[in-house]
């Protein structure tokens, strides 16, 4: 029998298998899992044992998906104050409180982004979005309510078709939306005034790691002089990249692209399924965060000012995320 509550394991496998997806949802699910783990802890009631247990749960969660920084950021946010705790019961309270705070703050962040982002879109605009991003969808819906959006192109986003989720959410809010295949982005881009996408991770130099295809959408937009906005909550900024860490791009199983039978019949065809790509800062006009609109090159300001806590606990020059050190073990 596992040391972890069943629900925690379900959340971990839900993230791994992409039943829970999108950087924001993953982060909130991880915070929720940490809270559940803390509340259901039934080991020795002493501070050290509890911290060790929480570090194990945190590592279990972080390992589920390698690319999105929101996951480790959420875990560090929830667990780092454990360093200052002095008793088991206080430590448990800290985890519960921090998890609740993270979930509340991240939801408020998305809302603030929608308000700020909508202002950036002029009246009667055509918007294009790629994949599914809660922050981007909320910006578009808010802008539509203010009469700023007349049409949205949503890419279907192979291999997982997250564009269908985007389509459904926009259509339910009454936004006129048209789905296009990913290959048709350059075909429609001349009609488009703004590209609005989300982010999985924003690096310290302002590059944006997002769903595969984002960088070519941004390139097509740049060629057509169409503005590119990235809607990203501050917990998507990666403190690790400031200390030189590379963002690992996850490759997922080929079965997500072609059926198993096809793969088995064509063993010499390698089906490559990278999930994310990197959009360079020069193709991004602005990143819309809950703290305001910044040029991508100013990403470091968000990192230093708003994720200072993460930098402190990581320690400058420390390039590996060491949860033990972070909780003071």
């Amino acid at each position, binding site marked *: 029998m596992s040391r972890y509550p069943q629900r925690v394991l379900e959340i971990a496998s839900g993230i791994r298998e992409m039943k829970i997806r999108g950087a924001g949802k993953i982060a909130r699910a991880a915070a929720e899992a940490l809270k559940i783990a803390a509340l259901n802890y039934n080991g020795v009631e002493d501070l050290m044992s509890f911290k060790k247990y929480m570090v194990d749960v945190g590592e279990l969660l972080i390992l589920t998906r390698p690319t999105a920084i929101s996951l480790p950021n959420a875990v560090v946010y929830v667990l780092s104050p454990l360093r200052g705790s002095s008793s088991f019961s206080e430590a448990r309270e800290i985890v519960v409180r921090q998890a609740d705070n993270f979930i509340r703050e991240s939801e408020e962040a998305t809302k603030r982004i929608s308000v700020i982002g909508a202002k950036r879109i002029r009246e009667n605009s055509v918007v294009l979005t790629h994949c599914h991003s809660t922050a981007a969808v909320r910006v578009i819906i808010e802008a539509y309510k203010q009469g700023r959006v007349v049409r949205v192109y949503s890419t279907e986003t*192979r291999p997982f078709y997250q564009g269908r989720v985007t389509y459904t959410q926009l259509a339910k809010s009454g936004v006129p939306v048209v789905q296009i*295949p990913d290959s048709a982005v*350059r075909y429609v881009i001349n009609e488009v005034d703004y590209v609005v996408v989300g982010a999985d991770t924003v690096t310290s130099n302002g590059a944006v790691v997002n769903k595969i295809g984002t960088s070519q959408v941004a390139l097509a937009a740049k060629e057509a002089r169409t503005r590119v906005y990235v809607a990203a909550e501050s917990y998507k900024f990666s403190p690790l990249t400031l200390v030189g860490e590379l963002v690992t791009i996850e490759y997922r199983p080929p079965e997500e692209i072609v059926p198993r039978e096809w793969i088995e019949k064509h063993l010499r065809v390698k089906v490559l399924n990278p999930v994310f790509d990197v959009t360079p800062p020069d193709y991004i006009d602005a990143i819309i965060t809950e703290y305001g609109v910044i040029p991508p090159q100013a990403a470091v300001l968000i990192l230093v000012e708003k994720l200072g806590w993460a930098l402190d606990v990581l320690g400058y020059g420390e390039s590996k995320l060491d949860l033990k050190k972070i909780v003071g073990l």
Partner: protein
Amino acid sequence: MHRFTGSELAFSILSELYSVAIKSSEKELVKRILELKDFVLNERPTSVASLNILRLIGLYILEQGFTGVDEYIVGLREKYERSLERAAEIMSKRIVSGEVLLSNSNSLAVRKVLRHLSEQGKDVKIYITESRPGNEGLLLAEYAESLGFEVYLIVDSAVRFFMKNIDKVVVGAEAVASNGAIVSKIGTSLIALIAKEARKRVFVVAPILKFSHETLYGELLKLPEYDWRSLISEEEIAELPVDYRARVPLYDVTPSEYIDAIVTEYGLFAPQAIPLILSLVERSITSTSRSLEEVMSGLKALVEV
């Protein structure tokens, strides 16, 4: 059902008209030519090779009558086959062992390039996009695999991600316009833009028969668009909001500045030089200023009297 490539459609039109020419009356042949013209214009207006074939056969009838039209069709077929082979062979010479190629869709010309490479014993690797809608990339991947090449299949969105690994982009075309732009499977123009950004060479393999005369006289090429049926099945759409709207273009236009060379049976040229090449080598085509519509109404008049 597998969608014909531009060249496959041209060949099937040639086969069909040949059998009509030898089996049926002259009137039947003209009727079929006119029907096929309407079919291509409605269903496949970008397939310039098919339209050119219909025009050439029509011209033959108008100028020489019906005698020998069957042999003319056979000759046209052989000539087009040779043109494709020759263009593919010329392209294959530009590729050296160890290079990494990228292609999309399932162009017959590109398949012939691969076959030439295989016959020349050149070992290349090839990235192929699945090429939505239609997923013809899977067919090209199967063919490249059968020739023994190392094949990587990727989604259309992953082109920029992998472009740094690529040496040359090699694609086919449905049509070549008079300004050197090409019409090809949707997504080709994005691939070419990405290649340009990464300073990778882009080659388009297209026999001269794909040159659109209409564009020379200012006509725009019509690009057909499909609806959601080419993206999603009836079962899947049940989960989406009612009146699910999709816009599914099948072809796009790649401007000449993103193309390093168009490879024809007469050699490898800058795309901007295409009209010049045409006037130098294909006098029989450029010397006739008769448009497809003129030829077709001439044919119509022929059977109506």
